[in-house]
């Protein structure tokens, strides 16, 4: 019997080995399969999405439909319906990007239909279903005067769209169309010979009001647009203001249903309003200059609402329009965090059983929208988040307990006695808190929220967002909750760098007890000079506040060395090539490394790239010295992208193993910068140049030109490779090209790379691939140590976010399939888009403007934050989660198996001893 058992067991053994081999095979196949997908039950587990509409341009209450809502049209070319009660988006239609989708007029909501006019020449008129958001009709307006689209005024009333164009020195042309079908109904010319290019005109339907004259003597002229026989009426400024008013005057139409204009005088100190009609009625009452006005009708009576904002208090004063009698039951005053000099953009005051209840939609200066009812703020939307310009992801601080331990083992004092005291003290404290919790005392209010602490794997972080409105947000990554918000008033992005605002992390949260610190670099709105604003990215507390620098910023850089309190200084380069350090205390440390510090600048308008060395600096002052200059012909070529590597990136492997077991060393130059120029003008329109430049030595490493190629160009630069996308005009498709740089089989310097010592040019491998979708943005993943393979996160125009393995765009993919290298797939011209590599599944995000990636505490995992009109956050694991157990790991099975093995071994032990006993008896 035993031989059989043995042979059988041998077979099992063999089988087990086979199973193992099979497993390896499965793993290998899995590697090539490259599937990175999500399971369905993981939906929303570590991702979230937030939808926004953007800064409100037009708004209107829909009181006609059964479900009450607010219709808005925004600067981001979005038409949306918001829920009246909660502010949530009921439906949202995203129109074309930029100029082609710019919304020019919105109207007809009070009549039960919604008509929008958008786009350039010719404009598109679209009629939408109010309730569902479907399109009903669409037609283009045939425009005769192409260059005058900005002067055109639109008026939508009773299913008719009026296109109002002033013709200088003669008349106003009013063309009426049926807003549904686009049929031209009537064209009228109303004589208005006074209109010139400088005349300030506003539309107060059915009149066009124009202010003519200089600051000393001005006349308001009113033209009835629908009556061709009428003569323009004129009202002098003196009849409105009485004697003694001073110019310059400014004309504005007052929002609301009534035709009313407001004129401000005395340098915007006061204003007065004029009720436009057959006989214009001026209201003889001064209104403060900074009040914003709105006219709402309550029981067929017109009420004027004046909104003022002072010291955080928003005050809405209501008064009867004609009699100026104040109405205290409608007037309100609110103090709320999310209001900042708001204006009423839409308002309704329906009469209900309890009386008149007014609802006001307020748009604040910081792009946020709020609904006010009575004295209560019903909801607020942070629409500034639709326009994010800078992102950083910051680690959260340690919990209070960990911080105590940290202070306990502080390295600075090594005295035995003091350490002893500290130990006892902290233990007493711990005992005290324990007792308190035992006796159910209320816990001490901590200065931070309990859940905002670092987790084990460093996955819970804080996203710091800077928006174009100058508002900063801190959002935690787990649920996407806004933790803090901060307004920085009077700043704007660098106008030379397409309104970019720069955000630097000067000190992370690892240096307890020093608080983390971020710095914002921007321009002053009035002077255009640079400003620095420092704040705590975890709590949102300003640290040094707004610091005006008094010079214009040309370039800036975060130093890689820290001061004694772990603060990294910022090197700022002004337009006169002077170097400054912020904060001043970091000057000494900056001077100590000045020998090896280089700065480069790129000027988009002149096409000049220059490199500066700081090696002439003294310990008191930093002196810059130009070392190289390069001119990229500005007439034909415009610099559109300057892309350097992510400064926190680490490269784990120095080379690549070839099939013959030799190593091809990577050319890892941290100073390498990719510069893309696109052709301008007629003859060079469709060319694209890409240069690889060493920013320290000014050496041109590589350059490539593409003909018959146009933007949009997106560049990713990492490790020793560059991946960029463009549109191929000849084949009419999007292509992705990749470059890879190698030093060769010998590494020039194994420890540190020097731009000045290395003269040999690298070997450049390159290849291009067809990409079957339009690209909005691209970014590479990044991990803590760079061991994990790199993927490229690609935002597609159809709303998907694709995780594309770098392996797919590897320029060493062999065209000849017989040449095999480890981990290289044979070349195929088209990169397939796998549906399961779309990391945001059906949570489409539109108008993506950027992707931010950040390493987590786990080597395998990278955090991805996508911003645009929507915000989306998730995490990806390019090489799968090799460092943590899978979340569906079967703990029960392993416990059961181990227990069963243990039990069975005891049973067999028993059985064996019994058997031995029996045999002994034989």
């Amino acid at each position, binding site marked *: 019997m035993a031989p059989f058992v043995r042979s059988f067991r041998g077979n*099992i053994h063999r089988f087990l080995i086979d199973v193992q081999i099979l497993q390896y095979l499965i793993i290998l196949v899995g590697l090539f399969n490259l599937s990175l997908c999500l399971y369905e039950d993981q939906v929303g587990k570590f991702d979230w999405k937030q939808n926004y509409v953007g800064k409100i341009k037009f708004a209107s209450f829909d009181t006609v439909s059964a479900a009450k809502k607010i219709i808005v049209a925004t600067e981001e070319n979005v038409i949306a319906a918001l829920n009246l009660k909660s502010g949530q988006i009921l439906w949202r239609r995203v129109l074309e990007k930029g100029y082609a989708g710019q919304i020019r007029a919105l109207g007809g909501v009070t009549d039960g239909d919604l008509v929008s006019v958008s*786009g350039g020449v010719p404009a598109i008129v679209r009629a939408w279903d109010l309730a569902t958001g479907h399109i009903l009709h669409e037609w283009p307006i045939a425009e005769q005067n192409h260059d005058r689209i900005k002067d055109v005024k639109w008026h939508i009333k009773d299913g008719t769209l009026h296109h109002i164009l002033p013709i200088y020195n003669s008349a106003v042309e009013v063309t009426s169309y049926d807003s549904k079908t686009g049929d031209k109904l009537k064209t009228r010319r109303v004589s208005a010979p006074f209109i010139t290019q400088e005349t300030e005109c506003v539309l107060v339907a059915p009149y066009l009001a124009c202010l003519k004259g200089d600051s000393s003597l001005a006349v308001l002229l009113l033209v009835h647009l629908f009556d061709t026989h009428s003569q323009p009426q004129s009202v002098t400024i003196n009849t409105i203001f009485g004697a003694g008013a001073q110019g310059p005057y400014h004309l504005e139409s007052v929002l609301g249903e009534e035709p009313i204009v407001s004129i401000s005088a005395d340098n915007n100190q006061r204003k007065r309003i004029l009720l436009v009609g057959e006989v214009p009625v001026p209201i003889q009452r001064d209104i403060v200059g900074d009040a914003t006005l709105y006219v709402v009708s309550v029981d067929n009576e017109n009420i004027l609402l004046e909104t003022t904002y002072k010291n955080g208090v928003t005050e809405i004063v209501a008064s009867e329009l004609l009699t100026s009698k104040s109405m205290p039951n409608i007037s309100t005053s609110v103090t709320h965090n999310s209001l900042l000099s708001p204006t009423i953009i839409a308002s309704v005051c329906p009469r209900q059983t309890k009386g008149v209840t007014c609802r006001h939609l307020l748009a604040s200066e910081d792009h946020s929208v709020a609904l006010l009812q009575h004295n209560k703020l019903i909801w607020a939307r942070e629409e500034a988040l639709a326009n994010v310009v800078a992102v950083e992801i910051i680690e959260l601080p340690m919990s209070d307990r960990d911080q105590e331990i940290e202070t306990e083992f502080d390295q600075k004092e090594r005295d035995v006695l003091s350490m002893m005291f500290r130990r006892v003290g902290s233990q007493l404290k711990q005992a005290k808190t324990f007792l308190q919790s035992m006796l159910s005392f209320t816990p001490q209010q901590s200065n931070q929220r309990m859940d905002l602490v670092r987790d084990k794997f460093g996955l819970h972080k804080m996203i710091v967002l800077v928006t174009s409105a100058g508002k900063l947000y801190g959002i935690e990554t787990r649920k996407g909750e806004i933790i803090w918000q901060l307004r920085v008033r009077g700043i704007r992005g660098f106008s030379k760098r397409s309104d970019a605002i720069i955000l630097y992390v000067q000190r992370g949260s690892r240096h307890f007890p020093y608080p983390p610190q971020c710095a914002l670099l921007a321009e002053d709105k009035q002077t255009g000079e640079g400003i620095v604003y420092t704040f705590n990215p975890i709590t949102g507390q300003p640290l040094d506040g707004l610091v005006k620098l008094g010079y214009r910023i040309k370039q800036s850089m975060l130093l890689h060395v820290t001061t004694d309190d772990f603060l990294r200084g910022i090197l700022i380069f002004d337009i006169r090539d002077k170097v400054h350090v912020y904060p001043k205390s970091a000057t000494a440390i900056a001077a100590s490394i000045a020998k090896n510090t280089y700065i480069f600048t790129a000027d988009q308008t002149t096409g000049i790239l220059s490199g500066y060395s700081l090696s002439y600096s003294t310990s008191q002052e930093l002196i810059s010295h130009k070392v190289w200059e390069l001119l990229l012909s500005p007439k034909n070529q415009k610099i559109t992208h300057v892309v350097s590597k992510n400064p926190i990136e680490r490269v784990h492997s120095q080379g690549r193993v070839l099939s013959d077991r030799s190593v091809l060393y990577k050319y890892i130059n941290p100073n390498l910068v990719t510069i893309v120029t696109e052709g301008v003008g007629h003859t060079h329109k469709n060319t694209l140049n890409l240069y690889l430049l060493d920013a320290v030595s000014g050496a041109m490493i590589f350059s490539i030109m593409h003909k018959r190629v146009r933007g949009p160009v997106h560049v990713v630069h990492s490790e020793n490779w560059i991946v960029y996308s463009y549109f191929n005009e000849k084949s009419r498709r999007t292509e992705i090209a990749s470059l890879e740089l190698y030093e060769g089989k010998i590494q020039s310097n194994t420890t540190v790379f020097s731009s000045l010592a290395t003269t040999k040019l690298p070997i450049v491998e390159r290849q291009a691939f067809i990409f079957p979708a339009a690209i909005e943005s691209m970014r590479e993943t990044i991990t803590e140590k760079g061991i994990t393979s790199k993927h490229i996160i690609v935002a597609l125009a159809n709303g998907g976010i694709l995780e594309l393995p770098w392996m797919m765009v590897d320029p060493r993919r062999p065209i000849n399939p017989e040449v095999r290298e480890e981990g290289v797939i044979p070349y195929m011209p088209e990169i397939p888009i796998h549906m399961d590599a779309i990391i945001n599944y059906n949570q489409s995000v539109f108008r993506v403007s950027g992707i931010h990636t950040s390493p987590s505490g786990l080597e395998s995992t990278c955090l991805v934050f996508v911003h645009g009109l929507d915000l989306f956050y998730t995490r990806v694991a390019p090489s799968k989660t090799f460092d943590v157990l899978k979340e569906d790991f079967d703990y029960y099975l392993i416990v059961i198996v181990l227990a069963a093995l243990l039990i069975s071994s005891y049973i067999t032990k028993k059985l064996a001893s019994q058997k031995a006993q029996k045999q002994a008896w034989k």
Partner: protein
Amino acid sequence: MYKSAIFLLFIIVSTSNKCVIAENDEDTSTDLYVIEGKVFPWENGAPNGWQLMTHVMANGGEHYGFLREDGTFIISNVPSGSYIIEVVNPNCVYEPVRVEINSKGKFRARKVNLIQTSQVIQVPYPLKMRPLTPFRYFQVREQWRVTDFLFNPMVLMMILPLLLIMIIPKIMNDPETRKEMEQLNNFTNYNMPEMSEVITSFLSGGEKQKSKAVKAAKKRQ
């Protein structure tokens, strides 16, 4: 040196590009056209308001078309040229179509072939966009199956020896099979120490048993 090189480059660019532009100029006309078509929902279970989730995009967002309630759409203000028309819907895959409008305003719709761009397979115009398949974004989580469980190496390791110990002795009592087995055994002779014996001896601990076991093995041989 680089400057001159780049300059040289530009000269090459400028000369080579002139002819290209000349070509393009020919079909530039100011007339604007309208692309029409209809999008069909996924037959079974198209959710309410699928028209709202869907829009049509020409050339990756240069022009948009929105769906009416019946699924028809128009893309207006399109100059003559070539356009890839894609249906954007988060739930279904639609095949893109290339629409070409020549300077005289003639329309031609064809299948998109990015690799062989000159190949023409015409499709009817006005466009009819039908869904190919629903999107499959998710991996299917492995279901718990009996076979999977049984072929799990851990389970195999546990159950098979048990089976062997419990069942084989009973079969062994049959003399014929015994003979067969002995024959079989002659073919496959392993010199490996037997796992079970090592384990049992280790667990039972004593030297005695071990020697006994060896003896027993000897006897059997």
